[in-house]
């Protein structure tokens, strides 16, 4: 589904401020994989997502999505296959437009012509979808998204993201800005849509319990490299302690001080 082949990303190359955030990283994501990604700040998780989505281009290496070479393809073009949700609940919706307008915008991918698709059938369909969130939003379809809470907006963003039928879902700490109960709710919805639509998913999280609990594969990043990669049965039986031990074995440094722990 996604192949990264010896990808390196250096910001400001050739200057004293040069910073390599991804080092010679290779990763193959299979169709249907649900990969959780953990790592401390600056490990390169978000840059990895930016490389896959095309928000930044690699300094070296190759990226293929669904068998197609996309290394330098602009973001909007490969977005046809990718749905991405950010940590900021404001990033996924247009604040001063209504819920149904927002849903109409994300109902399909790509350029569109001036034709009116938001009719009664479409409105009913959207309201039915929103009803599955169980937040009572289906009665507020003509209300501006700015009046929704962070949790509601993020749940709506999730719903809207899958509406356009992506093949790949990139979740960039999408529950980190929410309070625990909202985070749990959004995570539950996430799990549901991933299973329903068998989406290939990559999820960055600061929550180690989430990383262990969800998905069929876990990747730990540090200093721009993948240092731990567990899948299959090993992933299912993985515990927090085992994960910390693994990290300590590899980097030989006190993991207890690391932010990964603090954030749980």
């Amino acid at each position: 589904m996604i192949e990264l082949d010896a990808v390196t990303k250096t910001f400001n190359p050739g200057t004293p401020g040069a910073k390599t955030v991804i080092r010679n990283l290779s990763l193959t994501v299979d169709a249907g994989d649900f990969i959780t990604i953990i790592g401390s700040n600056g490990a390169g998780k978000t840059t990895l997502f930016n490389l896959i989505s095309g928000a930044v281009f690699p300094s070296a290496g190759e990226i293929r999505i669904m068998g197609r070479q996309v290394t330098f393809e602009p973001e909007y073009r490969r977005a046809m296959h990718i749905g991405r949700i950010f940590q900021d609940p404001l990033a996924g919706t247009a604040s001063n437009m209504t819920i149904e307008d927002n849903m109409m915008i994300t109902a399909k991918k790509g350029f569109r012509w001036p034709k009116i698709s938001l009719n009664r059938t479409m409105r009913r369909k959207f309201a039915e979808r929103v009803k599955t969130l169980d937040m009572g939003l289906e009665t507020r379809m003509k209300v501006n998204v700015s009046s929704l809470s962070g949790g509601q907006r993020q749940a709506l963003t999730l719903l809207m993201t899958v509406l356009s039928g992506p093949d790949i879902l990139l979740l960039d700490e999408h529950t980190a800005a929410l309070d625990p109960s909202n985070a749990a709710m959004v995570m539950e919805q996430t799990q549901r849509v991933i299973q329903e639509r068998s989406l290939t998913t990559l999820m960055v999280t600061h929550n180690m319990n989430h990383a262990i609990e969800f998905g069929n594969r876990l990747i730990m990043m540090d200093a721009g490299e993948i240092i731990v990669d567990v899948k299959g049965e090993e992933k299912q039986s993985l515990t927090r302690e085992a994960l910390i031990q693994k990290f300590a074995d590899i980097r030989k440094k006190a993991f207890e001080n690391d932010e990964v722990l603090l954030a749980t």
Partner: protein
Amino acid sequence: MIEGIFVEGLIYAIMALGVFFTFRILDFPDLTVDGSFPMGAVIMATSLHAGIHPLNGLMLAFGGGVGAGFVTAAIHNKLKVPHLLAGILTMTMLYSVNIRILSNRANLPLLRVETLLSRVQRACEGILSPEVASLIFFILVLLGLKLALDLFFHTDLGLVFGALGNNEQMVRVQGVNPATLKLIGVGLSNGLVALSGAFAAQYQGFADVNLGQGIVVSGLASVMLGEFLLRSNRIWALTLRVILGAILFKAIMYLGRYYGYYINMTPNDLKLITGLLIIISLAVSNYKRLRAKGDA
């Protein structure tokens, strides 16, 4: 005089709708307007003198404006130049282009040629006075344009425009190229502005390359004044308040021109007044926002 205020207000409202499109919906402050407004006027005047049907002249003016907008958007998109600079570049170049269109003249009177307006006035002769005839004509024109715009913003493409000014990232994630949208948006906006210029030339009876000086600021003032008149997020209300704002703006300018001498004001002070109007509008809306935050 009251018809005059309304007619001028309605003519400038077309331009204000264009300014509203770029400033408020696209979040692309576009200064091309100062060049595309006189461009519409000079294209219209030249076509009328060439014996082209006024309706075709309007189409040509609209097309010219769209072209000017394309140039600004292309400079911004391709060369990664900030939108303000891109607009200033096009606006400056248009000054020369406009003089070229007028065959190396700075202005062209329209007194001896038949304009769309004079045709309408003649058709209504005996039934309506020329002033009332032009007023009704422009009300109909504005109504048509407003409905077309409202409809456009309800289409799939129009909705994406709404999202672009709000959240460009969302548009990109949705697989739409923001550069394409800006090209279309700035093009359409300047098409409207040029159309407004074409009508202005016919109403005033001449086209002048200096017609556009400071026009973008008066458009912006109209948009901001309108925002005090109506509170809504519905697109029909947003376009309506732009039109009302433009009429109000013209009324204020008329007051300044005809009664300003009581306070020693001359017509030369009107640009200063326009600027102050915008500053006051900004201050008031800032104050309102702060107070709203305090209440929450």
